[in-house]
């Protein structure tokens, strides 16, 4: 995710077009992170919308344009956490359909579905917090340090939690493969 710092600077001055441009550069990432974390396309859209508006409202308080990325990721992370809290007891499973209906190419879906099902099932078995770490590090490719910054947690915690979570996922996928 590369963010145009000039656009951030203009957005800070209240330029709505520039803010929309900055958003365009990061929208896919914001949505994917939310979708994987929350497991619901509907909730992911909610969270991204809320993040977009909150970021716009607060961008004047951003002191350093270079910090835009971690800053908006923190907003997203907080919004996701709120959402997770709301349904942590309501349902703790990913909506598998939100992932498996993504492709319109049915042939492709059939060919790859077993692997994707195994992946989604492995994700399902994670806690929302574990999922969030996996989303940032594995799916979005951020480093442990960046992830720790986004999630506001100690780097060591993220690192060891990631280590254990991946082991857990690997085991889950292997078990799924045996079925």
């Amino acid at each position, binding site marked *: 995710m590369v963010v145009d710092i000039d656009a951030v600077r203009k957005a800070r001055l209240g330029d709505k077009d520039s803010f929309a441009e900055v958003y365009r550069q990061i929208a*896919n990432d914001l949505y994917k992170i939310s979708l994987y974390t929350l497991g619901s396309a509907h909730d992911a859209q909610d969270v991204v919308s809320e993040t977009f508006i909150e970021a716009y409202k607060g*961008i004047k308080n951003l002191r350093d344009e270079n910090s835009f990325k971690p800053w908006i990721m923190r907003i997203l992370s907080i919004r996701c956490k709120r959402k997770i809290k709301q349904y942590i007891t309501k349902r703790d499973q990913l909506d598998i359909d939100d992932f498996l209906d993504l492709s319109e190419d049915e042939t492709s879906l059939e060919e790859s579905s077993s692997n994707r099902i195994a*992946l989604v099932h492995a994700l399902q078995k994670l806690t929302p917090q574990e999922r969030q770490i996996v989303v940032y590090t594995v*799916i979005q490719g951020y480093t442990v340090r960046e992830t720790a910054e986004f999630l*506001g947690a100690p780097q060591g915690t993220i*690192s060891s939690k990631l280590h254990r979570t*991946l082991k857990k996922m690997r085991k889950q996928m292997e078990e799924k493969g045996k079925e």
Partner: protein
Amino acid sequence: MNGMQPEKEQELEQELSYFRDQFKELNQQIELPDSLQPENMQKLIENIEPTKQKDKLLKINFRRLAGIAACFLIVVGSVFVIRNHDIQAPTEQAPQLLMNESIQEDCDFSQIPETVKNSVGFLGDYGQEFYGEGAVCQDDGIPETVFLQTDDEPFYADNYSQIKNVIVDMNQGMDAIQFESGLEEAGIESKKSVRDLQTRSIPASPPPQPSHYLEDSLSYSNAEIANPKAAKTDGKYLYYFVESGSNNPTPNLYIVDSTTMQIESKLSMNAHVSEFYIYDNQLITIENAENAIPMDKLSENTVDDAVDTQNFSKDKLIASQVTVFDITNHKNPKKVKTYAQSGICFASTVTDDTLYLVSNYDMTPSSTIANTDSNSFVPATYNSSSNQAQYLRAEQILINPQSNFSRYTMVSALDLKSGEIYTQSVLGGSHKVYFGNDDIYLYSANDNASQAHRMTHIMRFSYQNHQLQYIADQTISGSLNSSSFNAKNGELRIFAIDPQVDGKTVYHVYSMNSKMQPMGSFDGLVMEDEISSMCYMNDMIFLTKQNQTNELVTIDISNPENINETCSRNLTNFNISTLIPKPNENILFALGNDTQTNTIKLCVFSILNSQNIELLDTYTFANSDNETEQFYDSEVFLCNESTIGILAYSLDDQENAKMNLCLFSFNRENGLQLNAKFEQNSESFVEVMNHSFILDDILYTFSSNSINRYNVQTMERTSSLLLD
């Protein structure tokens, strides 16, 4: 990667690479929905302008300025001292100010059970509350201590219209637009700002009488339990909650006779039990459940004329539910009653024959507020005794005008003797609670993620005559968690963590009086290191640092006007993750990781002389026990007065889990002694023990599908109970 062992780092990189490949295909097929396309999103901000940081955080109470000025003088004085110290002190005396490189250690704190975190001063989840970009800094980079006590005191609401207005005001911008649109749809008018409302001051409350919220009198007094939220005992019976899994479709709560190891009864629960208590012959469970408040039982006359009741929720809501079972006959528990209140339960405790239940009921713009026709903006309760659901009356709702987040924090007191329940709520509440010796503290980080400050607002309440009485509030710089607090004789000590934009972190210690007015503070800890554990003991704070240096630091808090660091002891190659204080013996147990051998290590320190912490003994697993395997997620806890337990899992060559429980004793003559070691091998994580406790030389271990009993002396397993 952040100071990990090279082989572990390589293993993690390989795993990352594998999973990144696995997700590549799935990831590519996710497309941004139309609703989130930039051109559509831009419409959302057409009528919104960016806002500067809210004024209210800067509204210092000038009438109290004189009192606060004294505090600022102390702070400025301490800053001055620190600055001079920085200039004059040799490197080894002030290492925390001179570190530039950032090295992270692999240490996971988050798996430690909440109760252990609380008792040992766990700091790992501080990060969950960080918001914004950093605190206000002075020119030299050392942040100011900020106290922002304002005149905006919480007040009890007069009517629902007032509450509605507050919620509108709390949801400015988009939230207000959506909310007011929702109100209009619902036929509700009024856009009056909360700032225009005439606030009603709280009647003077009598001074708080001591009570003991902190005491959880329900666990067996001689058995501290690893994860007591899942396993408890009253000395005769074992109570064990098991989550649903592949073997059991519903969560179950088992009651087991500890002598015969027979299941007396099995309660099938509707939802996850977040906590349970045993009181006399009552088993009390706390769940978050849907439809716990049957809206068809709603008493219409509880809503005043200002609000159209038709627009209130008849929809399902998640609520916190308390279920009381009579367990006079353990073989046949009988459900006596249920009580529910809006919101998700996040804290509870039992003391003085009273269960306190705290939940949060959020009014989020995307759901609740925008759709007043399907959700209420007044929280409700349900009591099965009267079979009636009720909205809270306006006078039961305390409005916190300092908050900009429309959240109700519900606080109920259930008298366990009489069965009476009393509920109140704070609108603009908090998402964290600390049960002090005689007070309840609600606190929350500044909820505006774009806020430049990292501030925490703390409200202090007493609970008398079943009435939540607001005492005072304060806003401080830094973030807190439940182990940050230490209340003693009306004085409140707070340890706060305050990350800066330059990568350094400032750690504050505050002391406040019963009115939450500052008595002193200490901001001398500025460093790039992380604090891995911390605890209060005997008017001292003990904390451990890791990353660039491993140190045990002590801070004397006995004199609020002169809080100061008294000792800094170097711990070479030792990352401490958990501190367990034992105040009666003036000793401190420390569990951590030896960074050279990468094995866990248990140490005991004498704190008789706070200026010279003495290392009494060390037990290193690799050296002393000929262990070659790696321990993960180790957890230390006091099993009873004389036994220290360490629970840790390891993986064998086939990556199968093995749970290890080591029991130690300690005395100053013989040092640490490993008395027993129990192992459980399993191909499945669910079969290994994850909870344990000791009752009279008998060890009980709990896994998801069994309870085992051992003789601690002989280490022999004497009984095993398979849970169906």
